[in-house]
């Protein structure tokens, strides 16, 4: 394409976007990978349940596509100066059965998640909430046992939704009934066949111009566990939108004029992780040598088809996040420096170690061979040991490994990215990493309400972690969806969220 025509196209697109008026009506046919794992949002952690139901329910506060906190059912909120008391002012909202959303429903919902009898995997999210009460029909006050800034991101997690108390009390749980206050109301669910939603006319949300949301008349989810069937379904127009385009198919679909691919960075990290209690990985120089020797760019090119991951420029926090850093001493591969560090540590002739990985996920398995050949260049022999996820994960969590490839996903707050893996007594710190300064800073980050001051804290944490190198940060997995050209307004959320359906519309 010539430069002029590129320019013309860009202009045409810009004009098109500026003038495109959202259309009301139409049912979006969405092709999903799997069924929801149960319909009760409070007792599952499944992304599938979250993605299909997050538009039927509402949370107190929400993330937008840039992962900034915006009002949800709470129109506004404030914290006391000591950070212990949080007050939420509710908006005027209606559940799908016509009853109003009250402060009592909010109290009930948070208490239901906390209650051990509910068996919610996220009961720990609100462990710091000592008490929660409705001071009037529209006001909720939470009292915390300690200042805890990440509270808002837990409240925005779209499975921690507000449910109607009377419906839960009538049905016992929410596995067979979905009554939320979100833009779409639940119609029916036929397992492994379809899940149907329809527009809720009394939804409170409006777009930037004040038009009522949502635009779509409904969404019908169908399930395509096989990736070839899913890719074919969007190419043939049997569905309007599909999730989880496999990395290998991204370039194929990008070349297809009848399909548009949306996506990219997702909130997660994948890294090489040392058990720092085990020699020789108790020596920081050995860990730094690995960090210098491993070429994360070639991992993405060779193991992830160039599309499956985005380079980790700093640590666990992906680029674009307010708390991310993009300066790493290991940004450029330096084999010489790696050899020097190994020699200093007393391993001039290299050594052999067991590289324990899982065979279950390609993005945690395929990079191992690239890393193996990277390390061979500094005389280190990686002996790859592979096991099924169900055996692998408990073994790693019991710290019974030397070096592994692992990561975690779904975070939004820096606390989840950094405290969970690196705080000395965190349940997920299976790498035995202990550093007093990191602990101090991580606790300070939990207490600090001001974003700028908080950012300074987390920048220092990340610089210190890079220096001590308990992980070699490799990449952040990318996530892609694809849609037909007439699907407009669907925004990619980097936290695996499909709140983008709230503003999606179908062009004629």
């Amino acid at each position, binding site marked *: 394409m010539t430069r002029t025509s590129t320019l013309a196209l860009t202009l045409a697109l810009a004009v098109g976007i500026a003038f495109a008026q959202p259309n009301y009506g139409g049912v979006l046919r969405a092709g999903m990978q*799997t*069924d929801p*794992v*149960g*319909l*009760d949002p409070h007792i*599952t*952690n*499944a992304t599938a349940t979250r993605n299909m139901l997050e538009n039927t329910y509402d949370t107190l506060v929400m993330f937008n596509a840039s992962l900034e906190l915006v009002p949800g059912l709470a129109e506004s909120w404030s914290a006391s100066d000591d950070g212990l008391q949080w007050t939420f002012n509710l908006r005027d909202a209606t559940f799908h059965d016509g009853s109003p959303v009250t402060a009592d429903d909010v109290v009930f919902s948070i208490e239901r998640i906390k209650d*051990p009898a509910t*068996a919610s*995997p*996220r*009961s*720990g999210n609100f462990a710091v909430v000592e008490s929660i009460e409705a001071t009037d029909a529209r006001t909720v006050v939470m009292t915390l046992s300690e200042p805890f800034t990440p509270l808002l991101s837990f409240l925005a997690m779209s499975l921690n939704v507000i449910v109607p108390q009377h419906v839960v009390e009538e049905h016992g*749980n929410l*596995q*067979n009934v979905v009554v939320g206050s979100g833009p779409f109301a639940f119609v029916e669910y*036929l*397992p*492994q*066949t379809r899940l149907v939603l329809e527009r809720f006319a009394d939804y409170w949300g409006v777009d930037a111009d004040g038009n009522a949301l949502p635009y779509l008349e409904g969404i019908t989810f*169908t*399930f*395509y*566990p*096989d990736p*070839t*069937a*899913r890719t*074919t*379904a969007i*190419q*043939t127009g*049997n569905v309007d939108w599909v999730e989880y385009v496999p990395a290998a198919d991204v370039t194929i679909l990008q070349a297809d004029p009848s399909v548009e691919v949306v996506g990219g960075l997702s909130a997660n990290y994948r890294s090489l992780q040392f058990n720092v209690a085990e020699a020789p990985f108790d020596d920081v120089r050995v860990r730094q040598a690995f960090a210098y020797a491993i070429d994360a760019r070639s991992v993405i090119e060779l193991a992830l088809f160039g599309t499956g991951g985005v380079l980790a420029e700093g640590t666990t926090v992906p680029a674009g996040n307010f708390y991310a850093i993009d300066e790493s001493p290991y940004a450029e591969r330096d084999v010489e420096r790696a050899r020097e560090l190994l020699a200093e540590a007393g391993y001039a002739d290299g050594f052999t170690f067991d590289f324990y990985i899982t065979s279950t996920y390609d993005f945690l398995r395929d990079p191992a061979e690239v890393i193996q050949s990277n390390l061979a260049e500094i005389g280190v022999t990686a002996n790859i040991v592979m096991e*099924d*996820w*169900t*055996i692998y*994960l*408990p073994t790693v969590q019991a710290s019974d490994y030397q070096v592994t490839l692992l990561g*975690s*996903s*779904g*975070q939004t707050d820096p606390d*989840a990215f950094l405290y*969970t893996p690196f705080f000395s007594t*965190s*349940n*997920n710190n299976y790498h035995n990493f202990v550093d007093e300064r990191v602990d101090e800073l991580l606790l300070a980050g939990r207490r600090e309400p001001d974003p700028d001051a908080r950012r300074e804290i987390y920048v220092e944490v990340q610089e210190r972690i890079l220096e001590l190198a308990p992980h070699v940060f490799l990449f952040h997995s990318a996530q892609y969806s694809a849609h037909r050209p007439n699907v407009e307004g669907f925004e990619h959320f980097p936290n695996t969220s499909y709140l983008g359906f709230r503003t999606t519309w179908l062009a004629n």
Partner: protein
Amino acid sequence: MLVFLGRRIVLTVPSLLGVAVIVFLLMRFIPGDVVTGLVGDAQDISPERLAELRRMFGLDLPVHVQFGQWITAALQGDLGSSIRTGRSVALDLSLRFPVTLQLTTMSLLIALALAFPIGVMAARYRGRWPDYLGSAFVLIGLSIPNFFLGILLILLFSLQLGWLPPAGYVPFAESPVENLRRMVLPSLSLGLILAAATARIMRSTMLEVLGRDYVRTARAKGLTERTVTLRHALRNALIPVVTVVGLQFGSLLGGAVIIEQVFSLPGIGRYALEGINLRDYPMVQGAVLVIAAAFVLVNLLVDVIYALIDPRVRYG
């Protein structure tokens, strides 16, 4: 005949019980449990909390106590409910059974419709081009895995030609046409492979029968080759074919697990697979029990068909 049937039905009870015990134990031997799946990969959750969750699902009880509870309920027709979704297993299985039944029946019909003519023609024109063509079909059919054939069919009929949807399911009661449009490709994927296996048996037993004395007699009487083949030889050649088809029904159910996954059909196979992935014990136990019962029933049916096609077979 009735005595025979009664005895066979009584004998199915220990078979099904055996299947129930084995599945129950196997599910508990594979690593990981429903709590591991429930919590997912990313959570900051303490070992104490995990133990508490296991206790809530009754997973801390000794295996024989768990089995006792389950089998007692199952004998009363209560297959329990899914741990992950809370849905009744018996109800879900009753929704899924028709899908798998339709898939296997259509596959079987396709298989027989192809295998009979191919096998008979190959035997009748032994060593000539219909035989070679038949052998080529059998060889390809037996070597290609059904999921791979399924994907090839999707790429050809959906992506290239655009004739049929690639996957998905519409209940027959809702729209018979849309239902059939979605069931053709999966039934072909399963049926073509069964057709190959059946055609091979059909050809060899036809060859054997065509060499028998009574066939020579029939020919000597001056009957046309067509009458000899279809009226005299075919009926006797059917007995081993029925046996093979009966046994192949088991592999058809096994193949349905994979084909239902490839074509997104809400059948029993996919239900069982989902149960295994989630380590949702009641789902898997219920599904396998139903599949085993179907298999046992089909074999019973095969025995009855014997008696119908071969008057010499008498059960005492």
